[in-house]
């Protein structure tokens, strides 16, 4: 049984180098993110409110946790494609990049710093996951409506709180639900694969 500590620790003499596999996994993450981002929410039969349910955030969260900097890179880039598919103006898409990067970066950072187990073995792991997704989404939620939508004049100042909260909830909830399912289902596989990233790039 491995613990969170062992998973992130470098063994003595262990050499890890970024490889072509990481480029490939980044491209595949972009693919999943773009498809889930563009179509995943549309087909969800909830009716009104689909705009506030963005499952693709899970790709950012687990991508960062499993694949470090590569996951963050993919998480920042794939919304450009999924937004393009849905017709979002190009500069709005570009302006989202930092927010998206943070949504992927914060859980990745938390898991590495606090040595949490991606397979979510203890309640501590769950708490770290939930809190880090919440913090990441909070940064995204502030960046999205406040910096981007506001500066493009798409929202008024007094409506900001509502949109920030809607954005936050719409990202945090799917992030946590999808994140838990993915981490539990596949972490054991990922950790054993050559694409797993212990540090930031390898």
């Amino acid at each position: 049984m491995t613990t969170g500590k062992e998973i992130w620790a470098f063994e003595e003499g262990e050499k890890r180098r970024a490889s072509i596999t990481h480029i490939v996994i980044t491209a595949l993450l972009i693919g999943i993110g773009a498809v889930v981002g563009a179509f995943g929410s549309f087909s969800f039969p909830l009716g009104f409110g689909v705009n506030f349910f963005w499952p693709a955030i899970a790709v950012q969260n687990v991508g960062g946790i499993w694949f470090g900097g590569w996951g963050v890179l993919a998480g920042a880039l794939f919304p450009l494609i999924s937004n393009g598919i849905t017709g979002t103006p190009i500069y709005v898409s570009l302006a989202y990049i930092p927010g998206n990067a943070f949504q992927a970066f914060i859980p990745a950072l938390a898991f590495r710093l606090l040595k949490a187990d991606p397979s979510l073995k203890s309640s501590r792991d769950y708490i770290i996951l939930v809190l880090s997704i919440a913090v990441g989404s909070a940064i995204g939620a502030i960046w999205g409506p406040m910096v981007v939508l506001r500066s493009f004049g798409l929202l008024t100042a007094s409506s900001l709180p509502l949109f920030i909260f809607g954005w936050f909830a719409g990202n945090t909830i799917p992030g946590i639900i999808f994140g838990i399912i993915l981490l539990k289902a596949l972490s054991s596989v990922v950790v054993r694969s050559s694409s797993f990233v212990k540090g930031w790039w390898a």
Partner: protein
Amino acid sequence: MAAYIDVQNLSYSYPDGTLALRKVNLRVNNGDFLALIGQNGSGKTTLSKCLNGILKPTDGTVLVDGFDTSTASVAEMVRRVGYVFQNPDHQIFNSNVYDEIAYGPRNIGLREAEVKDRVIEATRVVGLKDEHLSVHPFFLPKGLRQRVAIASILALRPKVIIVDEPTTGQDMYQSFEIMNFLTELHEKNGHIIIIVTHDMPIVARYAKRVVVMAMGQIIMDGPTAEVFSHPEELSKSFVKPPQITRLGQSLLTYGFPPNILRVEEMAAVVKEKMVFTP
């Protein structure tokens, strides 16, 4: 006798406008072991996905055990027709084999005790061992992953089992194993089996009935020996009879039958000719 699956004037076009099926009629009966063959893109996968309501007809109707697939619920359908996808990796949703096989039965709302019975039964039928149940399906070799995929459909206990490309990526021995086991399901448990395949020797050896598709239509439908004895018709769908059948057809002048399906049959015919010709 009413057919178990009755396809009437079925047409299907994909959202991008491609017309994949044109006015197809097909009756699948109790006791059928059917192979659906034809060139890539001839519509056989589309047709097989229409048989359990994964795809709904654009036009025409598909009746399964009296239920219209366009109005029946998913649960009603999966209890009757099971569909095993070609690549097992598209259908692995859980992190251990037990949950994977239990996923279907749980979806249709069975109680956990019943689920457990079915998982154990399905595991036994496909020849998985108990030690496999706790393994992550991802780590199993492809042959076993395919068995997990079949077991997870069997656990829903459908009358009809459709398997898309059961032998792709398997070696001959594994192919025979899978097909023998489908035959057992057919003969002992009375399942109707439908395979979608490119593997003609497998079709010749195991299927009782062959349906040939080309350009979204059924161009031939009949007993296997009958269908394979018309090579010129088959070539319209870019299909050839198996090598042994073609050997027999090249020896028609010596009185060989045009519909030999198995190597052993051919050997027997040659032997007989050699013995009795003098």
